[in-house]
Each structure stands twice: as C-alpha cells, then as structure tokens.
C-alpha cells in the first residue's frame, strides 16, 4: 500500500447536459499523484480543468449525464462509495479543496477564525478550545497573523483571504490538497508570497498538491510534474524538467512559445484558431485543427503513449518515434 500512488485516476469521465447538448467536460482522464508531490494541471479556459477538480471531489452539478471511471485513494477504489461515506472519509479529511475564487466564498457574517475551525467541530466533534488552538496553528502555517482570527472577511485583503481559505483546506491535515486557480486574482508580490508558502508547506508537512491553473509561470513555481489538459483530455503528462525545457506535444510546444518572457528577447507567438467546443468534440485528435505538425493519422484519436520515464504524450508523432 505504501507504494501505491496517493491518488490514482483512470478513465475519469464527467459529461453533463446543457441546452446546447452534452458537454464532455472530462473525457477519459488518467493520471497519478504520489506522496509529497505537486502535480500541476495546466490548461486554458474551456479545457475542462475546473470540472476535473469538481469531479475528483464529487462536487457535481445537477445535470450530470455521465460520471464514471476510477478514482483510487491510496489504492482503494472510491467511485463506489456512497455519498455519505465519501463525505466522511475522503472529502476534506484525505483530500482538501480550494475552489476558484474561494476567497470570495467566505461567509461574510462569521469571523474567519470561527469559519476555519468550524469543520473540525462539525465533522470531527472537536471541542471549541481544541478547534481554536488548531486554527491558530494553521494560521501560522499559512502566514496570517493570529490577530486576524477575530476579524471578518471584509477586513482582510484578497491575499489574506486566500490564505484563510488555504488554512481551511489544510486544517484537517489532508494528504492531498486540490487548488483551482489559487492565485490568479492576486497581485504579483502576493502571488509569489503564497507560492512560497505552498512550497514550505509541501516541504514541512509532506502534503501533496494538485494545482490547477492556466498560468504557465505560476505552474513552474511548484510543479514536480505537469499534466497538460486540452478539450477534456490530458495531452501530455511529464515531469517539470521535461515539460518546461523540452515539451513534447505540439500544443505544449506552442503554449511554451506563446508565454511572454521577461528575460528573453524573442517575441512570443500566438496559437491560431480556437479550442474545440466541449459539446461537440472532433472525432480524431482534438488539437489536429490547430497543429502545425498534423498528418494523416491524426484523423484518428490517439491514446496516451508513454514515451520515456515520466513522460507521456497523446500524439501520433510518438508512435512512429517522432521528434523528442
């Protein structure tokens, strides 16, 4: 069991009904997260990454059409769990979640210290003192002064609210924390500060992270491995070294080329075209339309191919030993 990855996702699918048809938000996603590892799920808007976050923690919308696949936590299959069991055992205790714009989801009429401590009292039945003590600990962990325990959310800046939300996710000492765009609404210095915190928490507590973002620069701040998502599927999963220095998938290459860099003279290039609609994904490779390297075989949907250790790509170029 100790060798099992902490989280193992296989063939996860989440489709939901919309007026325009069925949206294939998550369409056969597989990946692993090991202990003390940070996996970044990178993707642009409309690729389905937020739906993926929700799918992992079963925070599902009402109009779900399909939800299947395998989600194993420490080797144990959790898809079969009843909602109540999932809530008690997995959600928040084994896996924490910080949703997008979570800092705006704090209850405005409850003091932040109380909000952070509340789940401990409600779920685990802790006494008030014990919960407050733990809240103080976790405030230290995320870098918020204990003075703020008695304040209301509106008295805190955006960066501090985000730290508070992070504290809520960490308070039960989960093994894994999933964060969806944790720093996108924040200033540069605050972002850097929070990323520093995350690095420290990972180092000191051994927590694993799944960080979902569209910001390539942020992803490199913490990623051990990167999973690139496009149109509901993973197109490349590699370790950070491979991904940032030498991306394999044409989309990954185009994405890296489109990031403006401070210390580089070349101008960034944009990727022509638009991502396909999740309601009507194309039959073959979903990036083929915009891919400068497409060829005949691309009319057929490629599988995820393991190219070398810690690098998998969903692209026919690698079936035939293409450029690496």
């Amino acid at each position: 069991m100790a060798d099992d990855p902490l989280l193992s996702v296989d063939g996860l699918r989440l489709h939901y009904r919309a007026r325009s048809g069925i949206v294939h938000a998550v369409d056969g996603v597989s990946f692993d997260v090991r202990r003390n590892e940070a996996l970044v799920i990178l993707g642009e808007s409309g690729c389905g990454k937020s739906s993926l976050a929700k799918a992992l923690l079963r925070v599902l919308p009402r109009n779900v059409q399909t939800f299947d696949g395998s989600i194993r936590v420490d080797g144990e299959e959790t898809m079969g769990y009843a909602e109540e069991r999932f809530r008690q055992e997995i959600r928040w205790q084994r896996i924490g979640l910080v949703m997008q714009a979570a800092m705006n989801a704090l209850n405005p009429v409850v003091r932040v210290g109380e909000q952070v401590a509340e789940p401990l009292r409600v779920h685990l039945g802790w006494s008030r003192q014990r919960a407050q003590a733990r809240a103080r600990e976790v405030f230290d962990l995320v870098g918020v002064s204990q003075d703020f325990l008695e304040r209301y959310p509106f008295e805190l800046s955006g960066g501090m609210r985000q730290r508070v939300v992070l504290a809520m996710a960490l308070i039960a000492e989960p093994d894994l924390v999933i964060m969806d765009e944790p720093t996108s609404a924040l200033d540069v210095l605050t972002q850097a500060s929070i990323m520093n915190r995350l690095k420290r928490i990972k180092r000191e507590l051994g927590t694993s992270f799944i960080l979902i973002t569209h910001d390539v620069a942020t992803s490199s701040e913490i990623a051990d491995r990167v999973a690139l998502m496009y149109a509901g599927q993973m197109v490349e999963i590699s370790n950070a070294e491979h991904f940032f220095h030498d991306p394999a998938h044409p989309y990954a290459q185009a994405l890296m080329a489109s990031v403006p860099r401070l210390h580089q003279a070349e101008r960034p290039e944009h990727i022509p075209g638009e991502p396909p609609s999740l309601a009507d994904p194309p039959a073959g490779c979903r990036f083929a339309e915009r891919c400068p390297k497409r060829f005949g075989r691309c009319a057929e949907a490629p599988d995820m191919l393991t190219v070398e250790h810690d690098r998998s790509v969903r692209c026919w170029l690698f079936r035939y030993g293409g450029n690496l």
Partner: protein
Amino acid sequence: MSTQQPLLSVEDLHTWFELRHWGFLRVGSVRAVDGVTFALDHGESVAFVGESGCGKSSLARTLLGLHRPTSGRVVCEGRSLGDLGRAELKAYRGRVGYVQQDPYGALPPFMDIGRILAEPLKVHGVRDRAERERRIEAALAEVRLTPAKTYTSKFPHMLSGGQLQRVVIARALVLEPSLLVADEPVSMLDASVRVEILELLRRIRAQRNLTLAFITHDLSTVRHFADRIFVMYAGRIVEQAPVDELLEHPQHPYTQALLTALADPDPDNAQRERPVPGGEAPSLLHPPTGCRFHPRCPHAMAGTCDVEDPPRFEPRPGHHSACWLHR
C-alpha cells in the same frame, strides 16, 4: 524622443476621491493619484505597471477625462483638462480611446456589434448613416474581424473573448483617437490569445502613429509591447525608464522586488523560495509617511525614508527613480 510638443503633459497630478457617508458626510479622501508627473510624445507606447491599489486605473480614468483632477494639470494641446467646459470635455473624450479589461462586460449585451460601434459616432454627431458604416467597416478591418457584415449583426454572447476584445478595440478606434488607453487589455484572456491582441495593438499603433498607454500589472508582457515603463506604487511613479533599461537595471527596490517575484517558466523555480517583501499594499486613505514603500523595503533607512518623501533622482541617463538610496 521627437522634437515636437508632447501629446499629453501631466504635471503634479493629484486625483483624490472623497469618501462620504449618506452622500454628504465627509469621512476622508482616498489619494488614488498623489503627485504624478510625466509627458507622452506622439506615437509613443508606454506602460504603467503596478499592483492593485497603486492608482494606475485612477490615473487612466483621469487621462480619459472621466475624473477631474483634484489638483495639478493634465495638458493636452496647450489646454488643461480642468479648464475644459462640458462640450470641450466631450470632444476631448472623443480623442482618447478606451480599451477595458473585461471583454465580456465592456459591451452592452443587448446591442449587436454594428450598433455598439455606431454609438460613439452617434454621440459625436456623425449623422450620415453611410459615413458611420464606412468607419465601422474600417475599424473592424483594422482589428481583423472581416468580413464586417458577418460581425455587425452578431451579439456579444456569440463571440469569444478574443473576438470581443477586438470589438472593444474597434470601438476605441472608430472615433480616430490620438491616444489609446488600455487598462489591462489582456489579463482576462487566455494565454494564447493575449499575444494575438497585443500584437494587434502594436500593429495598429504603428499604422496610425497612435500613442498607446498600457496599464498592467504583468511586467512580462510589457517588454515586447512598450517603449517606456512607469512603475507606480501607492499613487506615485517610483521609477520610469525605457523598457530594456528598466528590465536590465532596475533601480528602485520595489521594481527590483517585482522583477524578482516574476518568473519565467523554469522547473528550477520549484526548488527555491523567492525573496518577497512582506506586508500588504498600503492604504490610499492613510498612506505611510515619507516614502510610501518604506514599511516593506529591505533597504529602508530609519530617519530618512520614514520621514521625507524622496524626490526624483536620475541614477542613470534617461532613467529616473524616487529613492533615497540614490542620493
């Protein structure tokens, strides 16, 4: 840069917002722009960089004529904004185009693109329908949304973020402005679309010899799209220089902190923590005494930085920085 008169000259501009309870009780003033001086030449592209709360958006609004200066002058073609009458102010607003941050909110959802682009023309008295259509078509062609006919009948919800932002730019161009103010024009767009839009702005600027003022917090985009950078903090300009000069030799501690905090994507980043100044952005209602950055500055000198505001120094030619370190 050029020998002719600058397009816009800003002299010791202060824009303060009064806080009032119930519409009349004065509580205090938010000093959004607190002593800003610079000049913009024709055809220049400049960037105002800073984090939220530094006053850059308020500065943009003052330049657009949306806020009257509280004190100081904004001089355009010899006339100060504060002196303009209503009709003159309206004419001025027609000469400054505005590109906003949020492409989804910047266009009224109940009007089609043709009508959206016609509105500024109608406001400025272009009565002839054919003339309006001609200018709309020209603007759409410039932002590469052609053929114009397919777009004018569409509604905003039918377009993607990138296309919407192009429409916003077209709307800013339709009155043929001399100055374009773009407030975070790409921050809400996807990474792959950002470059496209910035390239578009560059091209348009070159074609029309337009003056471009970017407001952004993202220093990494600025390098490729601006000639000069102004770094703002707490309502002041703390450093200004041509772009390469600033990025290579940042002088002010705040600029240095910003540059350190920004990363180029590099897997080694995950292994180290970045040195980041602690603390929070200062309140504009009660700004710190002396140099505004001193509570967070690693080089703050007690007795100097917390007492008196530093003036503008020129530590390197053409490169200005307001920091006591340069004395």
